[in-house]
C-alpha cells in the first residue's frame, strides 16, 4: 500500500516541468480571451468620455448629419454611415450568397477527386488577396468599367464596392458552407440514394435541409466580413456621406470613416472619441454576428452527435 502511494506521488523534475508547461499553455489559451476583452476595454477607454458626456443616441442613430469638423456646431449622426455600410454589405450579399452556396454545392456534392481539390485551393487563394488590393481594383479597374457600361459620371459607388465586397466575402462563405455540407453524414445521402433519388434530389431534399444551420452560419460570417471590411470599401465606395437611393450613389461606410478621419484628429478630442464610439458600435455588432454564427454552427453539429455520429478519434473532446 505504502509503495503504491509512493509510486503515484511522482514529483520529479519531469513532473514539475509538466506542471509548468500546463500552466503556460493554459495562459496561451486564456490569452485569446484576454485579447478580445482588451480590445473592448481599450476602445471603450478611448471612447468613453464621448459616450457618456456628449453622445446623443437619437442623433447618433437617426441623424444622417456627420459633420464632426464643423467649427461652430459639430454633429455626430451616424445614420448615413450605417446606411452606407448596410447598402454595400446588402448588395454584396445579394451578389455573393447565391454564388457562394452554388460553388459550395458544386465543390462539396458534385466535384470529385482532382477537380475538387483544385477548386478548393483556388477558393483558398481568393481569400488571400489583401483588401487594399481589392480596393485598388475597385478604384482602377471597376471604376472606369462602371462609368463606361452604365454611362454614369462616377464609378465609385454602392455597385462597385458591393461587387468587390461580394467577391471578397465569397471564399469564406464557400468554405464554411462546404464544411457544413461535409458535416452531413453520408448515411443520409446513402439512404436517399437507396430510395432512387438522383444527385440533385439528394442535394436539395436531404443535404441542404440537414445543413441549414451551417449555411446560415456561412451567410452570417459573410455579412460580418462585409460589415467590417475597411480598405476596399474606403477606396471603392466613393466616400461621400449620403443616404443611398440607387446603386450608383456614392456612400461612406462606418469603417471607412474611421480609417479616413482618425489620422486628422487630435487625441482626446470629441471627434477622436466619436470615431472610437463608431469602433465600439462596430465591435458590438460584429461580436453579435460572430456569436450568432457560432450558435448556428454548434446547433448543427450537436444534431448529428445526438444521432450517434462522433467525429474521428482525437484528444480534443
Amino acid at each position: 500500500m505504502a509503495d503504491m502511494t509512493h509510486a503515484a506521488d511522482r514529483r520529479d523534475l519531469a513532473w514539475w516541468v509538466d506542471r509548468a508547461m500546463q500552466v503556460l499553455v493554459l495562459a496561451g489559451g486564456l490569452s485569446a480571451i484576454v485579447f478580445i476583452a482588451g480590445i473592448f476595454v481599450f476602445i471603450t477607454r478611448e471612447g468613453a468620455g464621448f459616450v457618456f458626456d456628449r453622445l446623443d443616441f437619437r442623433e447618433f442613430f437617426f441623424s444622417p448629419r456627420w459633420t464632426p469638423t464643423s467649427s461652430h456646431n459639430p454633429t455626430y449622426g451616424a445614420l448615413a454611415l450605417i446606411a452606407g455600410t448596410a447598402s454595400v454589405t446588402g448588395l454584396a450579399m445579394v451578389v455573393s450568397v447565391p454564388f457562394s452556396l452554388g460553388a459550395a454545392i458544386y465543390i462539396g456534392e458534385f466535384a470529385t477527386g482532382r477537380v475538387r481539390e483544385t477548386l478548393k485551393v483556388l477558393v483558398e487563394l481568393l481569400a488571400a488577396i489583401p483588401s487594399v488590393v481589392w480596393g485598388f481594383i475597385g478604384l482602377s479597374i471597376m471604376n472606369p468599367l462602371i462609368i463606361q457600361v452604365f454611362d454614369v459620371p462616377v464609378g465609385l459607388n454602392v455597385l462597385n464596392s458591393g461587387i468587390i465586397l461580394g467577391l471578397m466575402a465569397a471564399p469564406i462563405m464557400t468554405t464554411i458552407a462546404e464544411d457544413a455540407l461535409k458535416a452531413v453524414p453520408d448515411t443520409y445521402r446513402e439512404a436517399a440514394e437507396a430510395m432512387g433519388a438522383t444527385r440533385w434530389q439528394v442535394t436539395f431534399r436531404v443535404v441542404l435541409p440537414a445543413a441549414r444551420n451551417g449555411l446560415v452560419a456561412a451567410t452570417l460570417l459573410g455579412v460580418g466580413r462585409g460589415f467590417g471590411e475597411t480598405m476596399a470599401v474606403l477606396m471603392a465606395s466613393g466616400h461621400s456621406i449620403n443616404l443611398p437611393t440607387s446603386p450608383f450613389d456614392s456612400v461612406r461606410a462606418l469603417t471607412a470613416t474611421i480609417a479616413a478621419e482618425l489620422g486628422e484628429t487630435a487625441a482626446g478630442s470629441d471627434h477622436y472619441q466619436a470615431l472610437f464610439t463608431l469602433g465600439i458600435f462596430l465591435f458590438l455588432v460584429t461580436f453579435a454576428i460572430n456569436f450568432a454564427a457560432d450558435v448556428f454552427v454548434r446547433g448543427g453539429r450537436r444534431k448529428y452527435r445526438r444521432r450517434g455520429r462522433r467525429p474521428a478519434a482525437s484528444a480534443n473532446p
Partner: protein
Amino acid sequence: MFEATAQNRRNRRVEGLFRLLFLWMTCMLILPVALILGVLIVRGGPAISWEFLFTQPINNMTAGGILPALVGTVWLVVVALIASVPVGVAAALYLSEYAPDNRLTRAINLAIINLAGVPSIVHALFGLGAFVIFFRFGTSILAASLTLAIMTLPVVIVATRESLQTVPLAFREACWNMGATRWQTIRKVVLPNSVSGILTGVILEVSRTAGETAPIMFTGAAFFLPFLPQGVLDQTMAMSLHLFVISTQVPDVPEHMPFGVALVLISMVLAMNGISIAFRVYLRGRKKW
C-alpha cells in the same frame, strides 16, 4: 434488363442542368479574379525592375522605387511572427491536448472566432489605444506588429490545432503507457509529428500579415519615410499602405506605379499561400498513418 424510363431520362437531364449551373457559379467566383490578376500583370508588369524594387521613392513618391516599403513590410511581419507564434502554438496546444469540454474552452473558442471576426479597423483602434498610447510604444513597428500579431493569432491557432489533431490518439496513449508525462508526450511525440503542419500555418500568417493595411495605419506605418527603419521603435513604410497612399493620396503618380506595387504585393501574398498549400499537399501525400 433495365430500360431507362422517361422519368429516368428527365432526371438525368435535370441533374446535368444543375451540375452545369453550379459549375458556372463556381467559375463566376474564380474567373473575375483570374481576369483581374491578368490586368494587374499586364499593366503592372512593365513597372517592375530591379531599380523599382531596390531604390528609394523620389519626387514625392511619383518616381523611384519601393525599397523602404518592402523592407518595412518584412520588419512588420517578422516582429509580428515573433510575438504571435509562441502564443498561438501554446493556445493550440491547450485546446488540442489539455482543454476539457467545458465553458472555459467554449469561451476561448468564441474569443478566437471573434479575434478573427472583429473588423481590422477596430484592431487598429485597439492598437492605437493600447500599444501606442497606454503602453507608450508610440507609433512604431513594435506597436503595429503587436496589433497585427493579435489580429492574425487565430490563423496560427487554427492551423496548429488542426495539425496537432492529425496525430493519432494511439501515439499519445503509447507514450503515456510508458510513463511519460503529458508534456514529455507532447514534446517527443506530438510536436515532432505535427511541426510541418504548424509551419504551413505560420506561412499563411505571413501572407495575412503582409497584406493588412488598416491595423497599421495609425499604429506604426508612415505615409512617406525615405529611410530604412533601424529598430522596432521606428516608424516604417509598408507595401500595403504604400499602395493605398500612391493610389489615393498622392496626385500625379504615373499609372504604372500603383499597378506595379499592387502586383508586387499580391505576388508576395499569393506566393506565400502557394508555398503553404504545396507544403500541405506534399505532407498529406507523405503521411504514414
